[in-house]
């Protein structure tokens, strides 16, 4: 009897663990406003030397088949309240060529992200304002300076980082309370890994385009969910 109870518990546990990847493509509908050259970057005596060609804004990154990049995809509802372990490797945001790379990223609330400065110039990393009660900071980071670890305690999509030394520099982090998130690539494709089987509300949030949601059901084979963000 005892053994059968244990076996049942293991089976139940396995059932919740099983699931799969959610994949899909986010497409853009409409004509995106033209991106603007970041003239102050190219004119800056220090930053201008670090880039080649014309550097433009990245408000709408539209790739093949109207795939929309830099969309933050995350599970908005459907997961049981639970505290997740920090990922084995910290998400990294780097300052390269006087830009934040990646421009859009994701992080688990309460676990640290690493902010690097690979540029030979001084930046300040300013998280000035939080709508969700996260603690703001403004820290200088010299060339080749020590990496900064920063933690956002509460979910907030998006946290905005900016450099005031180079006021065109912005980086955005989708902070959520679970590790099931992804950011679309330049062609709009994404994969949310290892989502347990179940029914969820999946959200697709773009900095300018706004947010759309979709109800999905994840089975052992995973799930597919495409979305469209439309310019109104």
């Amino acid at each position, binding site marked *: 009897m005892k053994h059968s109870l244990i076996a049942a518990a293991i089976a139940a546990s396995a059932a919740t663990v099983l699931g799969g990847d959610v994949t899909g493509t986010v497409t853009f509908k409409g004509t995106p406003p033209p991106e*603007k050259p970041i003239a102050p970057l190219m004119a800056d005596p220090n930053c201008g030397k670090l880039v080649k060609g014309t550097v433009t804004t990245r408000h709408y990154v539209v790739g093949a088949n109207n795939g929309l990049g830099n969309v933050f995809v995350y599970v908005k509802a459907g997961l049981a309240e639970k505290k997740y372990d920090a990922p084995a490797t910290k998400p990294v945001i780097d300052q390269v060529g006087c830009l934040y790379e990646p421009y859009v990223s994701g992080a688990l609330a309460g676990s640290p992200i690493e902010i690097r400065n690979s540029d030979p110039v001084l930046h300040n990393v300013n998280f*000035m*304002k939080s709508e969700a009660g996260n603690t703001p900071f403004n820290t200088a980071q010299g060339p080749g300076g020590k990496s900064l670890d920063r933690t956002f305690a509460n979910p907030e999509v998006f946290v905005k980082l900016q450099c005031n030394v180079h*006021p*065109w520099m912005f980086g955005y982090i989708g902070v959520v309370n679970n590790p099931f998130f992804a950011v679309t690539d330049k062609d709009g494709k994404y994969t949310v890994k290892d989502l347990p089987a179940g029914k969820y509300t999946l959200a697709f949030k773009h900095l300018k385009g706004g947010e759309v949601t979709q109800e999905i059901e994840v089975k052992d084979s995973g799930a597919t969910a495409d979305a469209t963000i439309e310019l109104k």
Partner: protein
Amino acid sequence: MPIDSPNPASPGAQAPRWLHWLALAAVIATLALIALGGVVTSKGVGMAVPDWPTTFDHNMYTFPVAKWQGGIFWEHTHRLVASSIGALTIILAICIQRFDERRWLRQLAWTAVPVVCLQGLLGGLRVELNRIPVFGMPGAIFFGVLHATISQIFLCVLGVIALGTSAIWTRVGVLGRGLLGGRAHREVLALTGAMIVQLVIAATMRHQHAGLAIPDFPLAYGRIYPATDADTLSRINQRRGAVVDDAPVQAFHVHLQMAHRIVALLLVSGVVSFALRQRGSGQPWAAWSRIWAILLVVQCGLGAATIWTGKNDGVATAHVAVGALSLLTGATLGIALLRARNGAMAINPCDPTRGEIQTAAEVRSLAS
């Protein structure tokens, strides 16, 4: 006796000329500092130096020049020039105590010292407390707006000191009540007060860092007054794509910019109307009010250009500087008219034994 008294017993007696030049230098330097502050806000580099009163943990006066890069250059220069003006204000106040006997001027000069100190402190609080909510708004906005407003009021205080030490001060004191419609000073001071209201609106707009809430002019999103419902704002925000990624536009930002436009229209109408009514009067304030009206018209043009150029840093900064100059012109004209209205007694009734003119009748007789 007061040094610049138009007392016939001491004709031509004035504050030392160099004292006036010193005050004028303080005015010009402050105007330049306001423009520099305008650059800092226009470029969004106010937080490029994250600490205060130190600069990246250095004493601000020994911060290595090699590190004055990008936004640091503007913010650090702003701080250095500001501290120089603080010192200049103290020197001016001491010199006025030493070389001018008028009580009101000495009091005003002393008043400028705590004002400039407060202004420096507000600049520091803008940096250090930028994330602390004050009266329901971020410290960055609260202290930023206060800092911007007091800077121009301080400019006006220095302007009145410069006026009080000038030859014009004696001249307008002699002209007297009978040569001017009795309410002109009220009209000018009311317009100047409205300019301070406009300044608060403008500073609130700029410190939201929401870019151009309305990108067209003279219409607003193609209408006389734009819609601000959620769908419209969503469409607006989807299409915004500046290099400096400003905060999303909210209804409040739109209403604020519309208020700025409406007050600007009222102000330019009022000032131009006043200037036209002074035409041909032969009084010194006729030319003065004409200059004021020209400044207001130029200021409106710069406001329009700020929108048409997509908030170009240089144009936006010129808009701040000319706005400050307009306020200064209005404030000094209003005080000069008040002086003319009431003769030498207007600003601060002095001890009769000190030889100041006592009544408007005396002023009139002197002027004639």
